[in-house]
């Protein structure tokens, strides 16, 4: 036993020594990092392929010998049979057709990926391919850690990729700085961010009501749902409309669509008639909206506990048969799908936002993009990123898609989630809707692509009695949220948020405070704890506390 303790003591001492040694060597390597200006120690990993690679030209040119690209990845379940996150149809495709071997430094789940990336950035050992969010991108850009991609993009991007990025708007805008391009975006268009009105149709039919054509009719319907016992159970246990605690900043069950009906655009930056950018939440139209919401709250039309409910909790209230109407998005069926089950007659239908007056209502859209993909400064093959993106677009939407997309997308149609860089056809969902509906009418899915086919199958299953497939019908069917979006597009009823850039300095320093002030004031007004006129005071405070500065900065960028 004595021997044992002596041994363990020895181990301890060795460990302590190792720790100290590590501290000093660590300091040295840090200094190194600073000296060679960003070229991280990881560069040696890929240098074996260094000059050897011939200029492999063209968007799909293959590297010979193959190159290595270090990247990071988010864990996914959407894999083909037998594939893993490290070795799947995408990684094999990259290496066989492009000669790019993607190696992951880490693979974590989506919830922790942002934090993990922050630590990676702080540690200084950057992977070659950086899938980052907007503020991380800004941080890297300002530290001079990103490779300029302007030239390689022009040279290597396939025509289809360029077409995708120019669909609707400039999809690369968030990754541009000083007329240079520093990354590619996961640009998905903007139409899917359109707010819309969701109504519980079984209640509407119970009360013999018609879909509202004006905001007043919508409020009339909310009143009827709250007061006329729409579920016919003889009890006064329903509300007209559900909100969530984040109000205009929240997801489903927010009043953004309601505000759009009154031509107010909360949280949006846009140029007014004079050409000057202003912020939607502080314009006079907002006051009307808050006044209406306050009236409805007083009359008991709104769930009185909304101020404590996040989207999930608000969804619980809706799914417990308490609410008949809400403003949401095209993905709202996911928030209420739990109540569509055997033995229940509940059903929801989406409608376009009605207008409060004779001016047609415009719905507010955001340019929607997920990650930004950038390349570490000093990586020898910055064009490899462009090639990976060309590859993704080609396999899913290009000429080879007909033969190969099924393999790359898998049976779920979601296989692209296993690729380290992703881009789907921007605004694709509305086209999918058109194709799926045409196929349903003709009862012939043969012309559909893999993704479309999976939605077609879902709708067929739902119609065959499988209620868990309901959301397919309500998103892509003939009466669906995408149909509403199609109507918005046809009627030119969309207005864009013009601010697509990383936050300005004042937004970073004051944005949080101002957002809180906005939310608190609005909730107080709706709760009736403050008069509607408190809005004027809020606008003054907002400007004084940094809003004025913010508007200046935004105007400078947008000019």
């Amino acid at each position, binding site marked *: *036993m*004595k021997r044992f*303790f*002596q041994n*363990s*003591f020895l181990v*301890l001492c060795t*460990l302590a020594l*190792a*720790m100290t040694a*590590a*501290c000093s*060597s*660590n300091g040295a*390597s*840090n200094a190194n990092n600073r000296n060679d200006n960003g070229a991280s120690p990881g560069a040696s990993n890929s240098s074996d392929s260094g000059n050897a690679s011939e200029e492999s030209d063209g968007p799909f040119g293959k590297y010979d010998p193959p190159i290595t690209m270090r990247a990071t990845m988010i*864990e996914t*379940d*959407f894999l083909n049979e037998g594939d893993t996150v490290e070795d799947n149809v995408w990684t094999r495709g990259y290496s066989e057709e492009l000669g790019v071997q993607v190696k992951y*430094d*880490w*693979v*974590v*789940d*989506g*919830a*922790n990926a942002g*934090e*993990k990336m922050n*630590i990676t950035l*702080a*540690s200084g*050992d950057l992977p070659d391919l950086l899938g980052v969010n907007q503020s991380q991108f800004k941080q890297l850009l300002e530290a001079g850690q990103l490779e300029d991609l302007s030239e390689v993009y022009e040279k290597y991007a396939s025509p289809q990729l360029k077409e995708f990025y120019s669909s609707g708007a400039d999809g690369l805008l968030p990754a541009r700085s000083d007329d240079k391009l520093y990354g590619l975006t996961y640009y*998905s268009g903007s139409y*899917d*961010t359109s707010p819309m009105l969701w109504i519980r149709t079984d209640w509407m039919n119970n009360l013999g009501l018609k879909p509202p054509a004006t905001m007043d009719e919508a409020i009339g319907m909310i009143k009827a749902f709250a007061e006329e016992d729409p579920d016919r159970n003889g009890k006064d246990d329903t509300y007209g409309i559900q909100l969530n605690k*984040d109000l205009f*900043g*929240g*997801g*489903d069950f927010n009043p953004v669509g309601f505000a759009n009906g009154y031509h107010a655009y909360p949280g949006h930056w846009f140029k007014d008639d004079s050409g000057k950018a202003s912020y939607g939440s502080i314009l006079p139209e907002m006051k009307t909206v808050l006044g209406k919401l306050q009236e409805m709250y007083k009359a008991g039309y709104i769930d009185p506990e909304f101020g404590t409910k*996040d*989207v*999930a909790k608000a*969804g*619980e*209230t809706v*799914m*417990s*048969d308490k609410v008949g109407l809400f403003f949401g*998005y*095209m*993905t709202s069926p*996911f928030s209420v799908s*739990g*109540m569509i089950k055997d033995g229940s007659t509940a059903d929801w239908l989406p409608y376009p936002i009605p207008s409060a007056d004779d001016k047609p209502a415009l719905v507010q859209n955001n340019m*929607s993009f*997920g990650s930004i993909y950038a390349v570490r400064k000093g990586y020898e093959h910055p064009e490899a990123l462009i090639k990976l993106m060309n590859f993704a677009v080609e396999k899913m939407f290009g000429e080879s898609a007909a033969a190969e997309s099924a393999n790359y997308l898998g049976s779920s149609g*979601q296989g692209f*989630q296993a690729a380290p860089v992703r881009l789907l056809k921007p605004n694709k969902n509305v086209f999918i809707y058109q194709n799926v509906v045409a196929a349903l009418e003709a009862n012939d899915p043969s012309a559909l692509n893999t993704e479309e086919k999976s939605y077609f199958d879902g709708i067929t299953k739902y119609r065959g009695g499988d209620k868990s497939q309901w959301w397919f019908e309500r998103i892509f069917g003939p009466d669906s949220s995408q149909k509403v979006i199609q109507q918005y597009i046809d009627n030119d009823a969309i207005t864009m948020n013009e601010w697509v850039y990383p936050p300005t300095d004042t937004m970073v320093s004051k944005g949080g405070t101002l957002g809180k002030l906005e939310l608190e004031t609005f909730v107080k007004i709706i709760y009736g704890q403050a008069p509607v006129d408190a809005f004027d005071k809020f606008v003054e405070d907002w400007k004084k506390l940094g809003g004025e500065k913010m508007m200046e900065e935004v105007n400078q960028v947008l000019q």
Partner: protein
Amino acid sequence: MHLISRPYRMFLVFNSVVLAFLALLCLFPIINVLAVSFSSSSAADAGEVVLWPVGFTLKSYDFVLQGGEFNTAFLYSLLRVALGVPIGAVITMLIAYPLSKESHAFPQRTLYVWIFVFTMLFNGGLIPTFLIIKEVQLLNTIWALVLPGAVSVFNVLLMLNFFRGLPKELEDASLIDGASHFRTLWSVYLPISLPSLATILLFTLVGHWNSWFDGMIYMNHVDKYPLATYLQSILNLTAIPQTNLTLEQAILLKSVSSRTARAAQIFVAAFPILLVYPFLQKYFVKGLVIGSVKG
């Protein structure tokens, strides 16, 4: 009983009511999670479940027992505990024993104690610590979860004070009989320190079982997540602010296990710890020292 005065009796009643209320307050979330885990998912989604399962089903437990990642994480947590608890306990004992000696026997004692206490109050911060773990090549290994927290100064102080409370005569007797310090620690101090050792084991065990942050920052693959990190990540995924979900995000969220399955996972994860308490209970006995020294 009649000696108890009226005000005191009132105090007793009041006291029991408050304590009972506090106990219920602690119990309620556990019972709620348990009830949700046994309920049908539509009832749970509608928020109908409070204390009793609605639409009783064992489906979620079925799911948990099949779930591959959950099992991997569970085993990894067991490994972490199996390594972390003994290492932690041995190191704690080895530090506490010399530091419990009087200053004349161990002159620099106070200095060393202060060095340890200093680390209790100040630390290197997240990024420097991460860099150290990375540079000593511990990243993505089980040792990154075990070694950085192996010395718990709080436990050391606890043990140290317990040792100081023991009669000095025990040590004297042992040394006179020719035992070394290691022998004294092992054969004399350890057997009579079981109550405080049990406390330390419990603290380390619960600490290792519940800590998730180190798993998140030091591990590079979901396969190597300990259970707490895995649970944190799936619970967190459903709490993303759901503004303007894209279709792909919404499908992803839907593919995450349902609320009832998550409740079952939480419960299965908490169960081993709940089991440990009664087994350690018997070591929490006082008075082991009584009678060890005579005269």
